[in-house]
């Protein structure tokens, strides 16, 4: 066949350089952000900026070179975090951040692999990967930003939407209960489980720094406002009102039983570091059990 196409417009390096020159470097954290990627796409009042900042602050505090940090994300508003960070970042398919990160973490134990994604991505379409990643104890840090709805697609109900909450697909209220994420992560085998809200950035930074020292699958849930998708239909007010709600309704109980951490609509939010235990991660078992036996056998020795 004959083919007719429009002309291809190649990448304009000069224009890209100009954009970076004009806008990059004004913010104190710009050295951690990919040049030319800001402004971000998030709505006013969104909690994602706080979570992004706390992640950067945790890296700074731990003094980890960015070349040793990798962020993998799925799809959704939280999935966009990867694209803003100036490091190796992978924005994968919906729900698949954990298995992608599994391949990366197992081949590159020298890197700190963080999965940054949302509640819908990690616990609905990606729920199976989440529980198996935790069971295997892959050396990954998962930061789950929970805003109780699918924000990017316009505020639909998700796996964390509480009973009776209104969203664009539950206009009369939600008939399903939401997951208790820390309880699920703990039951699946995560070695570190914490929950904070965006009202607790200092505690959140502390938790993220702790996960950098943990070998294995860590899980930090961050409750974040979504005034556009979730706040409005549930009459929670703007981003600031949601922060007030977190302030008034959060109860910090480190070491609490995660089974008590269920969240109801407008109910209290149990926060804290719930679980911090040690068990061998996948690679430790694989190296000590599997590789040692396989290579011992080759030398004609008993494993």
């Amino acid at each position, binding site marked *: 066949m004959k083919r007719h196409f429009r002309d291809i417009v190649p990448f304009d390096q000069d224009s890209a350089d100009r954009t970076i020159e004009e806008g990059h470097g004004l913010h104190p954290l710009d050295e951690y952000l990919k040049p*030319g990627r800001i402004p971000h796409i998030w709505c006013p009042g969104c909690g994602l900026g706080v979570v992004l900042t706390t992640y950067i602050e945790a890296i700074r505090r731990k003094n980890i070179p960015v*070349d040793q940090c990798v962020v993998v994300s799925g799809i959704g508003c939280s999935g966009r975090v*990867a694209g803003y960070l100036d490091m190796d970042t*992978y924005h994968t398919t919906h729900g698949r951040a954990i*298995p992608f990160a599994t391949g990366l973490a*197992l081949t590159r134990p020298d890197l700190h692999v963080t999965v940054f994604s949302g509640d819908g991505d990690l616990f609905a379409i990606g729920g199976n990967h989440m529980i198996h990643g935790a069971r295997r104890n892959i050396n990954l840090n998962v930061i789950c930003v929970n805003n109780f709805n699918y924000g990017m697609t316009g505020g639909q109900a998700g796996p964390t939407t509480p009973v009776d909450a209104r969203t664009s697909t539950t206009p009369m209220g939600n008939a399903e209960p939401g997951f208790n994420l820390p309880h699920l992560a703990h039951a699946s085998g995560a070695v570190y489980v914490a929950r904070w809200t965006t009202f607790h950035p200092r505690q959140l930074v502390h938790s993220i720094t702790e996960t950098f020292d943990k070998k294995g699958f860590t899980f930090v849930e961050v409750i974040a406002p979504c005034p556009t998708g979730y706040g409005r239909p549930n009459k929670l007010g703007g981003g600031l009102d949601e922060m007030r709600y977190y302030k008034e309704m959060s109860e910090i109980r480190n070491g609490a039983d995660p089974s008590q951490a269920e969240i109801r609509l407008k109910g209290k939010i149990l926060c804290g570091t719930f679980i911090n235990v040690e068990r061998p991660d996948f690679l430790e078992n694989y190296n000590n059990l599997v590789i040692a036996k396989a290579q011992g056998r*080759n030398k004609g020795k008993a494993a």
Partner: protein
Amino acid sequence: MADKDVLTGEHFIHGDAACAEGGLAAGCRFFAGYPITPATEVAERMARRLPEVGGIYIQMEDEIASMAAILGASWGGVKSMTSTSGPGFSLMMENIGLGMMTETPCVVVNVQRGGPSTGLPTLVGQADVMQARWGSHGDYGCIAVSPASPQECFDLTILAFNLSEMYRQPVFVMSDETVGHMTEKVIIPPLQELHVVQRAKPAVDSGRYLPFESTGPMPAPMAIAGDGYHVHVTGLTHDERGYPVITDAVQERNVRHIVEKVRMNAHNIIRVDEVALDDAEVVVIAYGCTSRVARQAVEDMRRKGRRVGLLRLVTLWPFPSNIVRRLAERVKAFVVPEINYGQIALEVERTAGGKAETVLMGLMGGSIHSPEEIQEVVGQYL
């Protein structure tokens, strides 16, 4: 452990084991998979062999995760592969698309069985040929090889790895149950006699590096995690830097690049086996297990003085359109035996453009053609 990397020597192994050995010889050190008949033996071989060479075998929770994991491993700088059959191949399509869009080298072995759906788990099929070409949504170029023997399972898995590194994309080894479970002699040459393509590294510093640039129709070298290039890798439409840009102009460049790096290089990728084509009046076009009986049929007919030839497709995609077009000018008919309702036959008919008849010999799966059946049909068009 160098002596275990490549098992140089003569072996009596099945096609699935040979695929695994081909992967190891090509340098594969990461395998993620999920059990499925008739491809399980590839995973089982890898589970035993990878730890011997210091590689990682992981059994994932499903084929979606397996495909995602090998992409992640590839960005970790390790050659990676998975194996599956039809139902698993369907599940992999999502992340095959991610691999195409993010230009991630890796190899997917599909040991085809009868479909659709659960179909014939233990019996042969060749009905995933079009799925390999078009299975994930959107446009991209496809490279697929089709082994016809355990020896080729070894050789073509290495070729698949080489092509995946050169063109920076997932490459398919479209085996089938008959070849996968067939045990034959496989000769594994010494390491130094193997042609293995190593991954190219960026030659420029991070300030000027464009990870998704096209140089002519070729992809840019790939910067892996931890190399300091700070690459953003996304399944969104992206510019040459990898930054998401949601415009028609960037979509035009992005998609044209991932289609055209294969289309413009088709002449370098395509491999066929031409048997007695010179004066052939009827040409049998076949691949995989079917090409073995087709060869028998052609040789038997040649011995009787019949002017019949065989075009065996070693690569299925890109399709060798120029070769078929040239043959169509002078042959009466193409006879296409395949274990499906006409998939490569569609390409043959389209390419022949009405200049020669295209005759499908379809089987829906569960058995292979007999040489006599093929001879009988070929005889009708001579």
